[in-house]
């Protein structure tokens, strides 16, 4: 569908647990991404679940034409 963005889905089972990335959904807004996430990743009774636009994460390793830091170190 056009106009959709990727959202990473994060969830945790208990209040003291760290959030873990459980998947990704494509949606036209954060609100509907949350609904999709809730329905698509309900294999466990998550205590907290949230979504974040994939574009909101910065990583210097993820440039399309640049290898990851680890790869550069090894090569």
């Amino acid at each position: 569908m056009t106009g959709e963005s990727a959202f990473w889905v994060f969830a945790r089972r208990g209040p003291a647990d760290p959030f873990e990335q459980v998947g990704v959904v494509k949606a036209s807004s954060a609100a509907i991404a949350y609904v999709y996430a809730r329905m698509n990743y309900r294999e466990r009774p998550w205590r907290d679940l949230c979504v974040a636009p994939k574009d909101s994460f910065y990583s210097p390793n993820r440039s399309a034409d640049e290898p990851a830091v680890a790869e550069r170190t090894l090569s």
Partner: protein
Amino acid sequence: MSQPSPNALSVEANQAVRDLLASLIEIKQFVGFQYASWCTSGPSIEADIALAGMAQEESGHAAALGALLEDPSTDKDALVTWASWSEKAGGMIDDWPLMIVTCLARDAAATATLEALKGARDARLAQRATKMLQEERFHLMFGVETVRSFAALSPKARRDLGDGYQRALAEAENQLGSIDKLSRLASLGVVGADAMEARRKSLENLSRRLNDVWA
């Protein structure tokens, strides 16, 4: 202390509860049938899975409400099984935007009624209404946000969808008869005096969220 069941109510109150539950079940069947029919034809795999999950939840709501009827002479299976869905739903709405606004309107009417039943004197009815409302929050969010995704449609198409929503809401309200039925339940003491206000607030809140969508 055990809470009274619907059967502990007066005959008149029991009948009033049953009338409302039967109408709610029909709405749930309709919405569940439409979502189930679309769960392999939605705009994305995420939407398909969400539709399947919501169809399952609507079916569960119909079954949970059907179980409250507690009348051996009532064929509960006939009320809540797939066989009765397609017949009562009048078939699949094959236009995606129209299906979304129709189901949103019907879900809105049912949810407003559940808001009113949340404070019912009967503990089982109140508990089930409360549980269903937790799930309906996400169903309404799905409907509202999907409607927002229709922003790319022409202004006329959006206005037509707005009209379709209002028409479906009026039909659902007519089918539920919730104003009359809830007033009756309030006068019989089955729900509190604030039930009508809870219903009104629920509909008003959704209407406010949708105001900018149709423009």
